[in-house]
């Protein structure tokens, strides 16, 4: 059992506060992705869990044991680094077995574990090679194998795929997910790539300016963003936002239309809808098409709705040209509302 609890963790670098009061529980064997733009504090949080960085305040617990005062080796973790950190002076075999050697494990056990994890990562034919003789993808496999060989409770990964080319990244992503699912370890995975986050995660923690703004399943993060930031960060293109004016009794005026919305006393809210959740119809938001980008399966339209930029993804058999006037109907159950003052979602 390796449930991870992060309790009230904050981190300051001098006068700069990198993390603000982080609270997060990661279930045993869960695959948690920390997602955010660079500088949001996701790597700092991972390094605090690893023990490579010390939190200013707060506690970290793994498997019911407080570990934030322990050196990395006593935390039951293993880590995969962004630049692989595969030792250039050791063979692949000795790299994978590095942690086991440090534990003074018996030779035959080291050989058994190294061979097994090498087979798992399909690098068994590379065991006598040195890192300089490997491709980036192979080095990445060595780094993952080295972590798996430790049979850790928790495996930490800091943007492990970001140095690979696009095709290899896709292949490694799928493989990583399969291997980790079988290894029964709890995984924390840091990335700035939302597609990677969506495809790998059991749960995503979206981070912004040193805070976790939402921790939920990929679908929930996508469909029900808790904050305007999440709505604008997740999805490519992100959600559309339009100003909404209160017309009383839970009715809100958005551009040329009036929608049913939350019955709150505020005078203004933000109406939000994903580009793929609108359909061309007889009744709807009046949109003037500015740009049409055919993407094969879809058409990506950039329009002007009530003076604001609005994107729509439509079926590619539509014939639309720049300058056309369209009416776009928003799917009622996909409309979300945000408070412009707090940026929070309103149910």
């Amino acid at each position, binding site marked *: 059992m390796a449930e991870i609890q992060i309790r009230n963790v904050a981190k300051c670098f001098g006068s700069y506060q990198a993390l603000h009061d982080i609270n997060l529980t990661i279930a045993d064997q869960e695959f948690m992705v920390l997602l955010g733009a660079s500088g949001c504090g996701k790597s700092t949080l991972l390094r605090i869990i*690893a*023990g*490579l960085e010390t939190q200013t305040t707060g506690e970290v617990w793994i498997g019911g044991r407080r570990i934030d005062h322990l*050196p*990395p*080796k006593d935390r039951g*973790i*293993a*880590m995969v*680094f962004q*630049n692989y*950190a595969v*030792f*250039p*002076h*050791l063979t692949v075999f000795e790299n994978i077995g*590095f*942690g086991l050697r*440090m*534990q003074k494990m018996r030779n035959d056990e080291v050989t058994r574990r190294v061979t097994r994890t090498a087979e798992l990562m399909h690098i068994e034919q590379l065991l006598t*090679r*040195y*890192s*300089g*003789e490997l491709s980036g993808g192979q080095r990445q496999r060595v780094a993952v194998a*080295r972590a798996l060989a*430790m049979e850790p409770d928790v495996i930490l990964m800091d943007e492990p795929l970001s140095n690979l080319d696009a095709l290899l990244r896709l292949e490694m992503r799928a493989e990583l997910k399969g291997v980790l699912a079988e290894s029964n370890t709890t995984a924390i995975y840091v990335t700035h790539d939302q597609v990677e986050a969506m495809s790998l995660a059991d749960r995503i923690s979206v981070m912004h300016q040193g805070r976790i703004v939402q921790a939920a399943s990929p679908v929930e993060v996508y469909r029900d963003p808790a904050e305007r930031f999440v709505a604008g960060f997740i999805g490519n293109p992100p959600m559309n936002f339009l100003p909404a004016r209160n017309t009383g009794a839970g009715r809100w005026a958005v551009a040329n239309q009036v929608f049913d919305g939350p019955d709150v006393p505020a005078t203004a809210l933000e109406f939000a809808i994903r580009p793929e959740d609108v359909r061309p119809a007889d009744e709807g938001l009046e949109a003037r098409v500015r740009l049409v980008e055919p993407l094969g399966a879809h058409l990506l339209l950039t329009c002007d709705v009530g003076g604001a930029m609005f994107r729509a993804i439509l079926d590619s058999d539509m014939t639309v040209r720049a300058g056309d006037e369209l009416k776009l109907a928003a799917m009622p159950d996909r409309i979300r509302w945000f408070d412009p003052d707090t940026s929070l979602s309103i149910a």
Partner: protein
Amino acid sequence: MNARLLPYVLILPVTLFLCLFFLYPFVLVAAQAFGGADGLSLDNFRDVVSYWKFPISLKNTMLLAALVVPVQLALALLMATMVNRMKKGRDLVLYIWTIPLGISDLAAGIIWLAIFEQSGFLNSMMTGLGLADGPVNFLSYQNPGMVFLAIALAEIWRATAIMLVILVAGIGLIPKEYYEAAEVFGASPWQRFLRVTLPMLRPSLQTALILRVVLAFEVFAVVAALGGTVMPVLMGEIYAYQFDLQNGGAAAAMALIVLGISIVFTVIILRVLRVPKGATI
């Protein structure tokens, strides 16, 4: 200009310089060393090797190198690791530590002579503290061990920094991620030093050791200042042959012997510290 020719043109000046001031004198020295009354001969070598002072000076030189170089290596590694961990004042400390490097070896010898001689600082201090009744002559022929130690101390003080600067540069080149990986995978600070720093420092260690070992075989001025004739070394013998005995052939033969020893040790260092085939550091 022809791109294939350009590199050769660029190294031409330095090649000419080396030929004129290194290769040519070297050939002259070799000719002198192997020259005899009737053409080529090994007489000069036979003469210098069979002279009674040769084994003593060879032994002294070797012993001195065997004591000084390991101590300097350990000190330089320790100092380089310390400097590398410093966040503030790193440059200042490095400058201070390298000051002895800017002092000529004879001046360094004289500084330590001022400490150890009969009316030197050490004696004044010991008398002042009441530790000794009268001045002790540390550097006399009756105290060969003391003379040896004083010379070793002066050499360590003088030339540790040359290894230090090479090792500081080398350690600075090792990416931080390797240390973090080693730490996460359970290596203690000492294991990180043994399993990451030392192997990844091999190229710098080679350079530093070769430089220092070769210089150790050429030790002269410090020995002359502190030991005089009490402790003969190879370089001192070369000087004596050349200027006191006016025997250029013997001096040349000795110089070639020192060169030979240097080459042997350089090859040994290169072999022992070689990077395994395929490994890139």
